[in-house]
């Protein structure tokens, strides 16, 4: 068990948390945040696993670097789309019925 391997395993936990949020929460912004957590988990695995195997590896690091910028742009696009959706429909979730939890629209 090395420190980079710990990073990779923490990345899997983040993936699990993100997946849970994506499936369970109904508010679109929360879904977006959960999706970002999922993406961060993937980045951690991508950087941590090769570093455990053979020291710092610039190839996955470069991939993660471009991935982060794409993730920011995609998140910004998603926020724009969500705001547009809210203005058109007045809803913050994709389901029709009001959810019973606090996460959704009351």
């Amino acid at each position, binding site marked *: 068990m090395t420190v980079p391997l710990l990073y990779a*395993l923490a990345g899997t936990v983040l993936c*699990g948390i993100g*997946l849970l949020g994506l499936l*369970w929460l109904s508010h679109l912004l929360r879904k977006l945040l959960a999706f970002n957590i999922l993406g961060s988990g993937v980045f951690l695995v991508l950087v941590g696993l090769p570093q455990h195997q053979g020291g710092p590896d610039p*190839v996955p690091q470069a991939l993660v670097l471009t991935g982060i910028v794409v993730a*920011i*742009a995609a998140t910004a696009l998603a926020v724009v*789309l969500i*705001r547009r959706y809210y203005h058109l429909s007045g809803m913050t979730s994709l389901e029709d019925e009001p959810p019973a939890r606090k996460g959704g629209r009351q």
Partner: protein
Amino acid sequence: MMMGRMRTGLIVLACLVVTGVLASSIWTIAGNPAPVDLPRMLSENLERSGVEHPVTAVLLNFRSYDTLLEIGVLVIAGIAGISMAETTARADPNLRTGDTLLYALQRWFVPLMLVLAGYLLWAGADRPGGAFQAGAVLAAMGVLLRLGGTPMTFLRPGLLLRLGLITGFTVFLLVAVASAIAGEAFLAYPPALTRPLIVIIETTLTLSIAMVLLALFVSAPVNDAEDPDEGSPT
């Protein structure tokens, strides 16, 4: 209620299973040595790449196809975001604040961030840095200016915005096609020109990345008066 609880249980169970499978497969992979020694291959070929920093070499030489497609994705995201925008007044009164702290921050930080972006761009050749970091700093500077109410007329839909968005992608693609026509492979730089070409591509990439990120921030549709406020019950 029963259905809801069952659904929650199923979701939690599925996530636990996925996490477990993922963790165990990572544990298995980590136990075996890497099949290809990428860092060694990279350090052996580093002097042919035109830059001294391995990450920059991967980004702009060895895997430049990925970077080309990635800036394409950015441009598409920017265009999609802008097309969603409802264009508002040029100097949006909602965004103009009288916050003295913000003004002070602007006066101190905007020149500093410009210098930092230039440094990051140049430092990418031999240490951590490069087009993406520099572009992010430039975009953050634009966000700061925007929060202070600077009009930013160049972000209005028009020629300047279009040019700014596509410059990085176009220059990258031109270099790629030119090298293909000159007889090398697609995106294989001629050895004598590697470094200047990378510097040109990085500079235009920085501008385009900053422009895309800033345009996405500015283009977030602003509430109209007749629309419900965010958070108020509808």
